[in-house]
């Protein structure tokens, strides 16, 4: 019995050895198939003289300077003028919600607007410098829009109002502290014709 086992086991081992050997060969072969390109590299032919080198004319693609004449500021159609009668409205950080003082200010502004119904006003939304400029453009617009919506609920005709966001591009105070930031988180009212 034991010897029988021995025979069995030995035979198994032999099989295993053979299998191991075979497996290895197949494996290597397979990989050879997979990677043909890099074999023993040919020494790259050294171009002896000019002709064999790839000529590459370096031709700068002309990049035109801006056609300044055609676009300088003249396209700005509206002459903006700060409405001194209309007070600014201020906001908390990263917020477009109107505070109570803001609503009081807007009520005063609404009265003036209703009195001067021929005047068209653009509400400019501004942010402090801390946010990202893209996000602040969207936030500034929300600030302008919340002021406009409040004015409309107070009876100001919507066609008297428009909005624009400047994000953090036009700070009222160039400082870098909370006092400056608080002044910059604002809506301004600009009379346009």
């Amino acid at each position: 019995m034991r010897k029988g086992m021995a025979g069995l086991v030995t035979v198994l081992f032999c099989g295993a050895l053979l299998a191991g050997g075979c497996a290895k060969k197949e494996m290597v072969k397979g990989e050879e198939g997979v990677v043909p390109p890099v074999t023993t590299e040919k020494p790259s032919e050294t171009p002896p003289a000019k002709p064999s080198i790839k000529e590459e004319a370096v031709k700068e693609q002309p990049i035109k300077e801006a056609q300044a004449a055609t676009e300088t500021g003249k396209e700005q159609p509206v002459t903006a003028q700060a409405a001194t009668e209309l007070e600014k409205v201020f906001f908390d950080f990263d917020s477009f919600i109107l505070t109570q003082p803001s609503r009081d200010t807007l009520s005063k502004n609404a009265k003036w607007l209703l009195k001067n119904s021929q005047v068209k006003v653009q509400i400019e939304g501004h942010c402090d410098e801390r946010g990202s400029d893209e996000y602040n453009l969207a936030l500034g617009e929300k600030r302008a829009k919340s002021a406009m919506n409040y004015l409309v609920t107070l009876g100001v005709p919507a066609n008297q109002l428009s909005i624009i966001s400047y994000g953090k591009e036009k700070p009222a105070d160039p400082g870098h502290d909370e006092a400056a930031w608080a002044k910059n988180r604002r809506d301004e009212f600009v009379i346009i014709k």
Partner: protein
Amino acid sequence: MKKFLVGLLLLCIPSLLQAQQGYLEVTAPGNRQMQLAIAQPVSLFGAQNADIAKGISEVFNFDLTLAGPFTVMPAPPSENRSGIRPGEFDFAPWQAAGANLLIKSGYTLSADSLTIEFRLYDVSRGRELVAKRYSGKRGDLRKMVHTFSDEIMLAVTGERGPFTGKIAFVSKATGNKEISLMDYDGHNVQRLTKNSSINLDPDFSPDGRELIYTSYKRRNPDLYRRELFSGTEARISARPGINITGAWSPDGGKIALAMSKDGNSEIYTINKAGKQLARLTNNSAIEVSPAWSPDGSRIAFVSDRLGKPQVFVMNTDGSNVRRLTTSGAYNVSPRWSPKGDRIAYCRQTSAGFQIFVINADGSNDSQLTTEGSNEHPRWSPDGRFITFSSTRSGKEAIYVMRSDGSGQTRVSRGKGADSHPVWSPRWQ
């Protein structure tokens, strides 16, 4: 008998293992930089010109030091024979100096026309890897060297370098934010817009021939498309409210942007003529800054739908929205890497904005910058570098770093604040 069997087993196992391995393992610790030597450029015809020689060496030095895989060797050894072609010089002094790679340059200057021949050698194997000759004007010197730097990257890393690329950016040199263009290393600045209003968020078309940007020049933040070489310009989106953060799709067919025409800022796509509007997001929160995955199947964007701005990812039809960034209270400006595996973005921290990179699946969120406030990360077309703007040296300036955060180098030289860099695609 049993002992015998066990013994047999023990004897067979090692040879079994060995047979399956078949390879001897060769390992080494660390990840070294290759020692790169730049031979003194020589004149192939006519008198030597110190300016040309110095210019060549300097541009190579800047490009290849920034590249990452190389240490540029400070002083070239002296040579008995200093030809640039194979057989015209000896490898021995370079081998002795420990160089792995060697750049040989020869130039010919006649009047205003300049020809430079570059050759890259593998010093260890004594073999030429790539050789090119470029002809142009004397003023093309930097471009010629950048072009060969790109070739070197191709030969050594398998991926062409981005050094011939340009960076478009927003410059405040005139006091107004205008779009400008410069070589990636800050040379040859050209101003593109001169409208004295506010110009923002430039982005290149995939072929590098057109640029979109947002301008206030008609008193509303509208999206413009401009052909770089002709200067021709078209206003492609002037819908009421903002038309900002335009991002060109990888196939060039679409532009994703944020608009507020329907009430508040949402992500839309339009074609390059500004038509075929499609709305991708729809809620009461702010959505801005779309960024395409390189396969064009997904868009990362910023939304504050959970209270504070965070980066989200959605399919290009607006479905399957999921949040990408989970740490940090304020994450903006996502940009997908050209390989698609990572997303660079910008986080507001207690120490200003910092650039982070996160895997596209949300794992492995890591901070790359610490000094000053750093914004607007954009990848180079090969994904090896990230350009960004930083306030670390005072006013905002354009910087370049490797995508692991190493090698942070200022490239813009202007005195005005420079921001919003975008690295151009390769120019075919």
